[in-house]
């Protein structure tokens, strides 16, 4: 069942880099699950767990797989068609495997062909990938001042509790928003039931934003800014990232709010360390693999 393929660099520059180091990346299908479901609203999926290995990954912090084309041997297209790219997945989790979810193949299919890119994130390859901002939490409700962030067109604002609450209020689902969701849903061809479910979900999610706990670091910014960030750490007195058992982000439209809850409240003059997904810290390697369906 296991499929091992050596990635074949297609672009010339990538090929040179590939060949210069004489190293590649190996993709191994660690697990494949074709979860086929018949139920009212549920859809099945083809879920893959890919193991990546090779010298290129030695200094990698994270990786992700971007699928460009996926189809079964009956011709069924398995890509989801949305523009959202998956997040980079930290190499320290799940033994470095990368999860990938596709649409269900045809029942009678026996194999699937996937073409895409493995993207590797190695911040040590670019000195500008790590930005440290001292005393980042001393000026709340004011954008962080950093030339590197500015150059990357990233604007982040640490929030006070009062500003956070005001922003949550602005995010409440209004009648106008519901009407817009209905119109968008109809335009996209969704059924009435699906539209109502989406509206209910949005309303439920709107009510889930709880007041922040003491010591929570709150950061607001455009979604496009957060898309360029791999991780934000709060630094402790020893200069090391604090242990943060809880972290998350919530996006409405183009705006995102990130919450970071360190185990202990951070010092008032704590620094932030922002790890950026810069072009020099990323390597994209095309791949193609065929796997047999279980």
């Amino acid at each position: 069942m296991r499929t091992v393929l050596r990635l074949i660099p297609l672009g010339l520059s990538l090929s040179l880099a590939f060949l210069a180091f004489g190293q590649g990346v190996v993709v191994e299908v660690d697990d494949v699950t074709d979860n086929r479901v018949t139920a009212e609203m549920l859809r099945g999926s083809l879920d893959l767990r890919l193991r990546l290995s090779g010298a290129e990954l030695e200094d990698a912090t994270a990786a992700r797989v971007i699928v460009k084309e996926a189809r079964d041997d009956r011709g069924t297209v398995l890509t989801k068609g949305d523009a959202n790219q998956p997040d980079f997945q930290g190499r320290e989790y799940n033994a470095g495997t990368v999860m990938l979810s596709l649409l269900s193949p045809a029942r009678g299919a026996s194999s699937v062909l996937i073409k895409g890119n493995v993207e590797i994130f190695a911040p040590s390859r670019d000195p500008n990938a790590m930005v440290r901002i001292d005393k980042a939490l001393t000026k709340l409700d004011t954008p962080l001042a950093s030339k590197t962030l500015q150059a990357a067109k990233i604007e982040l604002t640490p929030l006070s509790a009062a500003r956070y609450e005001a922003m949550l209020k602005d995010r409440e689902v209004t009648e106008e928003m519901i009407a817009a969701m209905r119109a968008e849903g109809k335009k996209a061809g969704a059924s009435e039931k699906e539209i109502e479910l989406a509206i209910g979900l949005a309303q439920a999610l709107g009510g889930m934003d709880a007041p922040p706990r003491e010591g929570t670091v709150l950061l607001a910014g455009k979604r496009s800014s957060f898309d360029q960030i791999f991780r934000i750490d709060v630094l402790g007195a020893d200069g090391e990232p604090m242990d943060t058992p809880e972290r998350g982000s919530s996006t409405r439209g183009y705006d995102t709010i990130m919450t970071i809850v360190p185990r202990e409240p951070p010092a008032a003059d704590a620094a932030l360390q922002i790890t950026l997904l810069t072009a020099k810290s990323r390597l994209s390697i095309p791949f193609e693999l065929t796997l047999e369906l279980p």
Partner: protein
Amino acid sequence: MKNLLIVLSLLGAAISMTAQPKSIEAVVQQINDRRTSGSFAQLLIAVQLPGVPSSQVVASRVLVTAAVDDTGASLLDAESGEPALEPNSRGSMFDEGEKETPVTVALTLKNPSRKATKVKEVRGEVELFMPAKDPNSVAEVAKFLSFSGKSVDHKALKSNGVEILLLSKADIESERKKIAEAHRKEYKEAGYEDGEDLENTIASMMEYTLIVEESDVPVRIKDPHKRIQEIEYVDSAGEVQRVHARNLHEDIGAITTWGDPPGADWKLRVKMKTSRNLERHAFVIRDVELP
């Protein structure tokens, strides 16, 4: 003699006929053909029984006797053992005043071939645990901790031959002394002499023997007919607290919530299977389209 044989044969047929469970309508609700190179590959079919209200069913299981797809392959998993009664989580969520919904049971089969398009037929029996059918199904004991050091007294427990002895701290201490003494005897028979070394060895062994945690209620349960299906607490607010059983030493166990210990005013609720509250029905489903 010949007539006697015929009579016996007819009697046997009659008994065998009466032992057959009545058939029940079964409607397929959901199918999940989980095909994987890893663990938990299975075909799961959720079946609704329109004639049975969900609120009356506390647990259920499905015993499949035959299952075949349209390629002729059997979907019975020879390696899986007899399924246990699984709690009906939807039944406990039913509120009075809400529209009653029929119970849904789940059956597990092997994955059909990818070439198969239908499950041609599944036959079997569904077993439903319906405590309301028998007044001796449930023993609910108020302020049960007051029975510490004694057997819990309830007619439903007696009727099912179940004995639950709540062990007190003194009982546990006494048991620990007995266990330590038995170890001491074994060691001495093996050549150890009385003294500090022997006592240290025994003390070391007892650090891991019959240890009762704060949330544990130590018990000795006798259930010779395997009637107990579920044990739970009901707290002061009337909320059900799920209880887990664990073994402490030989026939001594503990029931625990893995959280806070039960309060003095909490109830102990024991649900038991009896011949009157376990219903079996034969079912058959045919031509189930595969996803």
